[in-house]
């Protein structure tokens, strides 16, 4: 087999694989959603339960994303130049939610904070309930989207090293100024990348939320749960697909942003030695 044949056969193999595995389902999503026309799609998307689900997803994201961003950046700053075993332990702990099934995350949260778990009764005494409530959903979402900001900021911090901060020090800058004017701008693309990943993960989380939320229509349903419900309970294909398309579109936008960020990052890294 000569070089050109090999090149072409590899190309074809890859394109066919990707086309069938990824392209086909994505195309099908679009086709099926609009198979009954745009009006039907719009009807589904504007149903009150769907809107409620979208709202809950939005609120959860509004809490989970900033919290995980702040924690991620803070942890990255603290861990950046520590070689101690405790630093590696903390980084590993951050990775646990990603290495483990979201179902397991959901179960562990229930066993820690719900009435059948460790602290449930104590919390209930103060009126806090984890199971069947937005609080639990938020906690589950925070858990599964935990490490993305840390993982994208930490390598950037390690790469830029200490020199810019040292230079700023010698020029008279205090720690606060160095943080705001030197450190943060230097990591901003890493932060943005991590935040985008976190948003995508937050909006799309299913397994952990399913366990923790109790799936009560209109009250404790996030958009993914709503999609699941539409199918499982009502066999409502268009409804499920409509919701799926909305979610998918948000994710695709996130993906495009990530792509743009990655190429920008590549450009930034190529020119500075």
């Amino acid at each position, binding site marked *: 087999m000569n070089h050109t044949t090999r090149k072409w056969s590899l190309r074809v193999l890859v394109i066919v694989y990707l086309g069938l595995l990824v392209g086909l389902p994505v195309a099908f999503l679009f086709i099926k959603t609009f198979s009954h026309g745009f009006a039907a799609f719009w009807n589904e998307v504007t149903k009150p339960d769907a809107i409620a689900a979208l709202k809950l997803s939005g609120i959860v994201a509004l809490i989970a994303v900033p919290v995980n961003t702040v924690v991620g950046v803070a942890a990255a700053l603290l861990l950046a130049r520590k070689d101690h075993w405790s630093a590696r332990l903390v980084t590993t702990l951050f990775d646990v939610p990603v290495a483990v099934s979201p179902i397991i995350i959901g179960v562990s949260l229930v066993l820690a904070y719900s009435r059948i778990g460790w602290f449930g009764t104590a919390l209930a005494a103060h009126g806090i309930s984890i199971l069947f409530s937005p609080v639990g959903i938020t906690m589950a979402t925070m858990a599964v989207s935990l490490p993305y900001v840390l993982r994208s900021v930490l390598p950037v911090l390690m790469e830029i090293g200490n020199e810019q901060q*040292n*230079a700023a020090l010698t020029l008279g800058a205090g720690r606060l100024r160095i943080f705001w*004017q030197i450190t943060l*701008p230097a990591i901003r693309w890493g932060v943005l990348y991590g935040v985008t990943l976190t948003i995508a993960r937050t909006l799309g989380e299913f397994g952990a939320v399913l366990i923790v939320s109790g799936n009560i229509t209109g009250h404790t349903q996030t958009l993914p749960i709503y999609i699941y419900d539409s199918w499982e309970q009502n066999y409502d294909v268009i409804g499920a697909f409509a919701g799926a398309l909305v979610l998918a579109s948000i994710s695709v936008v996130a993906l495009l942003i990530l792509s743009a960020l990655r190429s920008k990052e590549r450009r930034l890294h190529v020119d*500075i030695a």
Partner: protein
Amino acid sequence: MSISLSHLTKRYGDHVVVDDVSVEIPSGSLTAVLGPSGSGKSTLLKLISGLERLDEGRVVIEGDDVTSVDPRHRDIGFCFQHYAPFRHMTVAKNIGFGLRVRKQPKDQIAAKVDELLELVKLPHKADAYPAQLSGGERQRMALARALAIEPRVLLLDEPFGALDAIVRTELREWVKELHHQIKVTTILVTHDQEEAMDMADQLLIMHDGRIEQSGEPNDLYDNPATTFVHDFLGPTTSFKDVTVRPHDLELLRAGEGSIEGTVLSVTSLGFEVQVVVQLSDGSSPWVQLSRNEFRALHVGVGSAISIRQRG
């Protein structure tokens, strides 16, 4: 006014990186700290700047004991080997950083930045980003940034190390001239012996954390106090069991010198010619001479020659 370093010591665990260094740096001079990697010279610079903390000793800058002072307040300018540019700021913003920290009025800062841009010959790059500059331009920007705050001392940590040979020589000349114009006390760290000899008013040779010798460059070259200094500052070769400079050996026709031999190899490096000879006592030193001198001898590989030590 000057800089006094007394008994500076820095340890990393058991390893003593800077060992009881005491030096006087005269005001307005350019002092070069020269030494091999691991000699502690960069650490010494960091200790003077405050970026590293002393274990023992005192640093006094122009009458101020700054030993326990944060680097922010020491009024020093520091240039790094890889320039440490603030990548997300323009050249003008980089240079003006220290002035903004000192809360100077905007128009004053702008004027000063323009002045410095002219000084470092980068006026057309004011709004460019460091990524768009060449290595030499980045280092000039770094110098402008350090000088903007009118520091009492300028510290340069291997500033030309990351540049290619031609740019390095150009920048070296340029810094020398700059130092003539702005007489700020400057301490330059380098491992390049030629650079140090060229630029320094005062030369400090560092080895294993200690200062082996200090003084004027030519003085150190001609009168090295230790073997290390002698071997480090210039080329050496062995003649009659004594270490000498290759250019202190004279290459003569057979019979004219003090010891006979034959030519083993001839390396022509433009103006300079290096000739390795095999002597009758078994040793094979090399001789450094000018092209014209070599040609006048009319010898080549295998020719019979003789050697004499000059002066």
